């Protein structure tokens, strides 16, 4: 168990945005909350998942809803803490620790906000290892763990529990309806996990990983070194392509942001193009050389599009013409590489009829 410093959280915001693989929402508002909480003297501790007892209970938290609404209603750190308390009141026991549903983007900070108010440690793990758009795209869904109950909280004093559903898909539907009525934003505490479940099905050490990536990027920025090389080194990634964004097409369908971005090669990639498809997050990358068009990276491998100069991530909502981008791949969590894992998050789960082939062989 170690203390997370505010500097770690500044790094976490940078690293989690990179692990967001284009989505997950900017961690900026969460970071602002944490700066204020630390200024008040609060501090959060990080614990290894392997220090959990098998029968400990762990709260899995996330913010649910439309990123646009989050830009107006903002994230209030106390709301996520209240969602955790609702679960405790429902079950009549206490959580040992809090962990993130999704380390990519804004949800990386949610467990820290809850933990700061509740005096609990944060487990160094999550259930995605990145960001994904749907509730069944988690390691705990791949493991067929129990999807209920789920607590949803709105600061007007609206509290809802989805106490039972037959599967993860129904949890997505039922909780989404409640979230919509709350104004399309809700603080949620998902089905509690036992220490044993976290040890077996959690994706481990992802908070440290995000902090580590962010730290290296910030260091490289300070020293005017190549931040892309720093990310590749820190996260054992591979550089896929360097170039300049020349086209972005977006459309909003069924609540998701879908579209494509095209990057024209520079330096070693001059003369080639990279086409990227996204559904909130980057899903598939094709390299185009003349007539040939080959998929070179796809989910569940992480595709990250970074600013070639600063190393900060570009989101699918904000990427635009003219940006200098380096596209890199990071290894997928092993749980998603099994046949069952690929059913949940492989290219076919996003509608691309491609057999998964990992960048990492």
């Amino acid at each position: 168990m170690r203390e997370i410093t505010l500097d770690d959280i500044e790094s976490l915001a940078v690293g989690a945005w990179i692990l967001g693989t284009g989505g997950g929402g900017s961690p900026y508002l969460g970071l602002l909350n944490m700066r204020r909480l630390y200024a008040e003297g609060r501090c959060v501790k990080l614990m290894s998942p392997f220090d959990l007892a098998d029968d400990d209970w762990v709260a899995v938290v996330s913010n649910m809803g439309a990123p646009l609404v989050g830009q107006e209603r903002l994230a209030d750190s106390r709301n996520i803490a209240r969602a955790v308390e609702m679960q405790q009141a429902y079950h009549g026991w206490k959580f040992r620790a809090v962990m993130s549903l999704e380390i990519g983007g804004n949800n990386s900070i949610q467990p820290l906000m809850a933990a700061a108010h509740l005096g609990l440690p944060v487990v160094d793990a999550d259930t995605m290892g990145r960001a994904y758009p749907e509730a069944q795209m988690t390691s705990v869904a791949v493991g067929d763990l129990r999807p209920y109950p789920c607590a949803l909280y709105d600061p007007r004093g609206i509290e809802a529990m989805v106490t039972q559903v037959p599967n993860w898909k129904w949890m997505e539907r039922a909780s989404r309806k409640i979230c919509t009525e709350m104004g399309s934003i809700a603080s949620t505490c998902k089905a509690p996990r036992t220490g044993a479940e976290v040890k077996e099905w959690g994706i481990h050490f992802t908070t440290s990983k995000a902090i580590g990536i962010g730290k290296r990027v910030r260091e490289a920025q300070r020293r005017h070194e190549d931040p892309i090389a720093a990310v590749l080194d820190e996260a054992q990634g591979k550089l896929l392509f360097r170039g300049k964004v020349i086209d972005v097409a977006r459309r909003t369908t069924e609540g998701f942001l879908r579209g494509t971005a095209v990057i024209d090669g520079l330096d070693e990639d001059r003369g080639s193009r990279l086409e990227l498809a996204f559904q909130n997050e980057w899903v598939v990358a094709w390299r185009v050389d003349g007539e040939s068009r080959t998929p070179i990276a796809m989910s569940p491998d992480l595709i990250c599009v970074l600013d070639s100069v600063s190393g900060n991530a570009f989101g699918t909502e904000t990427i635009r013409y003219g940006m200098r981008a380096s596209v890199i791949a990071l290894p997928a969590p092993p749980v998603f590489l099994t046949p069952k894992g690929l059913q949940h998050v492989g290219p076919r789960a996003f509608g691309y009829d491609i057999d998964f082939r990992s960048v990492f062989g």
Partner: protein
Amino acid sequence: MRRIGIDVGGTNTDAVLLEDGRVVHAVKTPTTEDVTGGILASLDLLRRKPEVAQGRIDGVIIGTTHFINAVVQRRHLGKIAAVRIGMPAAASLPPFCDWPQDLAALVAGEVFMLEGGHDYDGREIMPFAEAEMRAAARRIREAGIGAVGVSAIFSPLDPSHEERAAAILTQECPDAQVTLSHRLGRIGLLERENAALLNAALGDLARVTIEGFRRAIAASGIDAPLFITQNDGTVMAAETAMALPVMSFASGATNSMRGAAFLSGIKDAMVVDVGGTSSDVGQLRNGFPREANSVVEVGGVRTLFRMPDLYSIGLGGGSIVKREPLNVGPESVGYRLTQEALVFGGSAVTATDAAVKAGVVAIGDAGRLGELSRETAGAVMTLAREKLEDAIDRMKTEAGDVTLIAVGGGAFLAPDRMAGIGEVIRVPHGDCANAVGAAVAQVSGETDQIYRDMTRAEAIAAAEAQAVERARAAGADPATIQTIEIEDMPLAYLPGNALRVRVRVAGEMAST
């Protein structure tokens, strides 16, 4: 049709007289601390030309970086009250929460957070807290605070709670200047609120400055209405600018790109404005600068202003040349160029000296360049060209060669042949492109309201008609008015197919 355009920059105040679409005369004077002195001096210079002195002037249009500089330099800012309407949502991130501490300490007076605001679908988050608002207004009066910034959650969708707050403030503190966030921005509470708070803090400065502009114009014997240019290249009446000074934040860059388009007659091209210290590269699309679509920081405060998308590098006529290794910029002698450059008898080797040695331009006394070799001068010019080429390439949105319009006092640093550039266009009066851009600024009209029981097409048409009428009333020539922006948002929860429509139109200033 005769108009005077003035650009009040950090270094120079430029003024041009535009007559029937032609630049008759252009002058440059140093900007003065009080701003008005420079304007007075440039108007005096302008009026020494007989053709300027005679005949009436239809309008004076001023573009200024004065207000954005006040924020950046932390000068002339007032203490304000902030009213946030949206509790219990967003409670942990109050107004000023992401401001640099020094600026917040200067500006933040009272902060109030009240119940109210709206959801994305038009429903109220909570009913508006009328009694608490009245109590807040009384506290503001008692504290002697003269400016208030008001923000409400989702006010761009439904401004009614901000408007009710303003009505109460007007009753309780009739002398206070009130800024409502929905007049300044869109979705993004913190950024929109920040814009409103900055605007409130600039209230006194705006009043004093714009009244100074008026006095300077009157003192030089010109009897013409005064307009101030805003970020999007259109003008607002002086009274409006007093209420919304932040709308002029980026007008310097916008004006120089609009001026480049006007002087060259080209509507789609890259533009580089090479000044004394820096070069700004932007792109003209249909005669207007392409806008940045991300968060813009002003003096360390995040805002969502619509600003031209610019890439700036530290290269200009005053950039200092360094050797071993050879480099030029980002350090610059700035406004001291005419004392410190070799060609002006100084001892600093600048980009201008290299250009004179290389025979690209004739400025000052080439006889003073003794210590600068022709080889070094050539290498500096190559370096400057490469820096500009890289900056331009970063801003290009398509592969292939593009047309470049080079303006600004240091435009000679951009040679005729550059990688990725098909043609470099130079224009007469290009060194005063920003003042020309002010002189040709258009008049806009905007409407923003909720329509019910209409189809989307009917609602947009109704909004357009109203915006056109407003532009005409503000002085636009009806024959030239074009729609520049339409935005519509369905309010799902409200009965009667409610649709919020925002339309912005602009046209040429009509002759009076």
